[in-house]
């Protein structure tokens, strides 16, 4: 059975919050393992894991280099080269933070990669602010993949006109202008047409909105969403009330 889009998002969001609030090694590692496992089970791993790697590899490396080498607060020095001191506290800080962040990133990506965006848009569309937010979300996701093919078309048209991109920064800046101006112009002009089209089709008018797409929901899922949100809130409150517990 497919989850209601809000249920998936609520699950991902509150897991991320609870993991951050828990701030403990075992919890973070469990969440990481669970997220990776679920991504395989859902068949999203092939798209999700590369995306996660692109985000997490530089982040983790940056944390390790930063705190592993420079942690002035560290006391247990493991090695030292000039100003760089490898300290146990620094490494621990870096690894703990890396695990916690990886858990949050993976679980949120799992949420966004498994949610059915058309369903999410349909669910959000039926109410005021949400309808506008849903429009921005869906329209961005539609335009995004189209951009690269459009840029390629513009580049070809300009090369055919005799524009050669020179190497070096000035060349790149010039190329940015050649390509960005037609791109922006066509996007802005299209947006103008789209605005008129949307308004003529009643988008943005007051009044009730219905949905053609049917998204299945169940009382169990409705309850689950409430429980998940309450759990996340409870985790935040607990952490703020006892800032150092578990540290």
């Amino acid at each position, binding site marked *: 059975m497919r989850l209601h889009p809000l249920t998936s998002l609520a699950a991902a969001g509150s897991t991320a919050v609870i993991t951050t609030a828990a701030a403990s090694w075992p919890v973070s590692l469990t969440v990481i393992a669970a997220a990776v496992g679920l991504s395989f089970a859902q068949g999203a791993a092939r*798209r999700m894991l590369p995306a996660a790697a692109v985000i997490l590899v530089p982040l983790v490396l940056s944390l390790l280099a930063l705190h592993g080498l420079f942690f002035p607060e560290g006391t247990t020095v493991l090695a030292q080269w000039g100003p760089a001191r490898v300290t146990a506290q620094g490494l621990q800080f870096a690894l703990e933070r890396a695990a916690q962040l990886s858990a949050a990133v993976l679980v949120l990506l799992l949420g966004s990669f498994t949610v059915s*965006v*058309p369903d999410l*848009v349909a669910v959000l*569309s039926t109410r005021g602010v949400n309808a506008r937010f*849903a*429009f921005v979300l*869906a*329209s961005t*996701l*539609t*335009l*995004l*993949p*189209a951009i690269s093919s459009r840029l390629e*078309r*513009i580049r*070809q*048209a*300009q*090369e*055919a*006109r*005799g*524009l*050669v*991109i020179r190497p070096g920064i000035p060349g790149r800046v010039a190329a940015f*202008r*050649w*390509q960005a*101006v*037609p791109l922006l*112009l*066509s996007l802005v*002009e*299209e947006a103008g*047409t*789209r605005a*008129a*089209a*949307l*308004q*003529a*089709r*009643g*988008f*943005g*008018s007051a*009044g*009730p*909105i*219905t*949905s*053609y*797409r*049917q998204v299945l929901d169940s009382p169990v899922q409705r309850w689950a969403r409430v429980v998940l949100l309450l759990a996340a809130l409870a985790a935040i409150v607990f952490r703020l009330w006892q800032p150092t517990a578990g540290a």
Partner: protein
Amino acid sequence: MVQTPPPALAAGIEKFVFPGETEPVLAGISLTLVPGSLTAVLGGSGSGKSTLGRLLAGWLLPGDGGTLTGFFELAGTTVRFTGTAADPQIDPGRWGRQVGFVPQDPAGALSTVRVTVAEELAFGLENAGVDRASMAGAVRDTAALTGLAHLLDRDPATLSGGQLRRLAIGCAVIQRPAVLVMDEPFASLDTDGAEVLAALVRNLAQDGTAVVIMSQRAEPFLHTADTWLVLTGGTVAATGTPAEIVAAGALEMAGVIRPRPLTVARPRAGVDYQSAVNGPTALELRDVSFTYRRTRRRGWFKSQPGPPADPVLHGLSLTLDAGEILAVTGPNASGKSTLLRHLNGLLQPTAGSVLVQGRNIGGHPAGQVSRDVGLLFQQPRDQLFERTVEREVRFGLGRDGLAADQAVQRALAAVGLDHLAGRHPAELPASQQRLLALATVLARRPSVLALDEPTVSLDGPGLDRLDRVVRSTTADGNAVVLVTHDLDYARSIAHRLVCLEAGRLRGI
């Protein structure tokens, strides 16, 4: 006394001015649309047709969109505008239920937030709060009317041009408006597509919809219209029945294209034609084959269409002599544009070679080859990025000021834009944008001119200019290759005609 039925829409536009401008775009226009009638608004590029259409349909709103003096009468209500801040504000949603509009670029009418054709059709109903059962019925009926019934579950982004236009029409008529306005619906449709569209328009008119079609070509179908309104410079040049207008000769004066049977001698056809000019070989294709590498992209929101299905070339050989005009025709997706991209190195053949003036261009970037081969794409806007027409043509002409000045002057004069040198390219009407793109290529004096669908979006004067440029450039000893779906045009101008079908060339 005979009671005349109330008009579906009546408009009296004394004056309409865009923000920050002083000269009106439209002036002195009055029209009355009777239910079930077909009206054609004809005019050249920049005559104000699109502006009029968008204004009638509530796509261009008096107030923010410009200053209007005049009135509209729609659904028994008269709305008056005096061009002041106290004017009423049109509610575009409610207006849109009475007047549907199909823009020239049908993709622009899509919401971009619906993943199937059925949901896209239902978008307007959703916003009107229609319940699901009635929506399903309306979607079914509209799909049947517009021939989309078998496409209801498709992603709108994967539709072809003709299907997209039918979808845009479906979106415009699903709420059963009294009036339907269409901007250049026949542009770039082939004969079959045009016939489907004509039948659809006839059905709508029979159901009582008042249909208005904006066009710069007096298509054969438009001769069945009840009324023609000919626009020049934003005002009515002539109005009456098609026969009256044709008799008065108003079309030619307004720059409207009148397709007519060809009387020019047929060009000599065939792949192995010997040029009469007997010049040296300008361009040679030796056994060129090409296959696209397979790329598959998956979008986030929905699957994206890959490149059009396998436009491949199979062992093409072709020589083009200096001073020769070659036309390449063929059905859609037969590889015409792919062939053209080989001529300047944008695509490199997977086998065989392309020679320009006897030199193999393999491995040379397109930017360099373009000195010899000027290629003009279908979308002129992709090629234009400067602030003025003059700077646009001058761009990349080198530092020699005097020579560059002369080249710019010559190129602009050749396409007849010299009086617009200070204008912003993006503000020119489409026809002039194409001519400007042509001028940017001409200024570099290429020995081969390659044109992709050059007639699309050109109006009458624009076509004349194109003809003159093509003939004078070949008279100077340069060669021209043009790709077009317009067989009549190809016959009228080319020395030689070849047909590209499924990646293979054959003579006609």
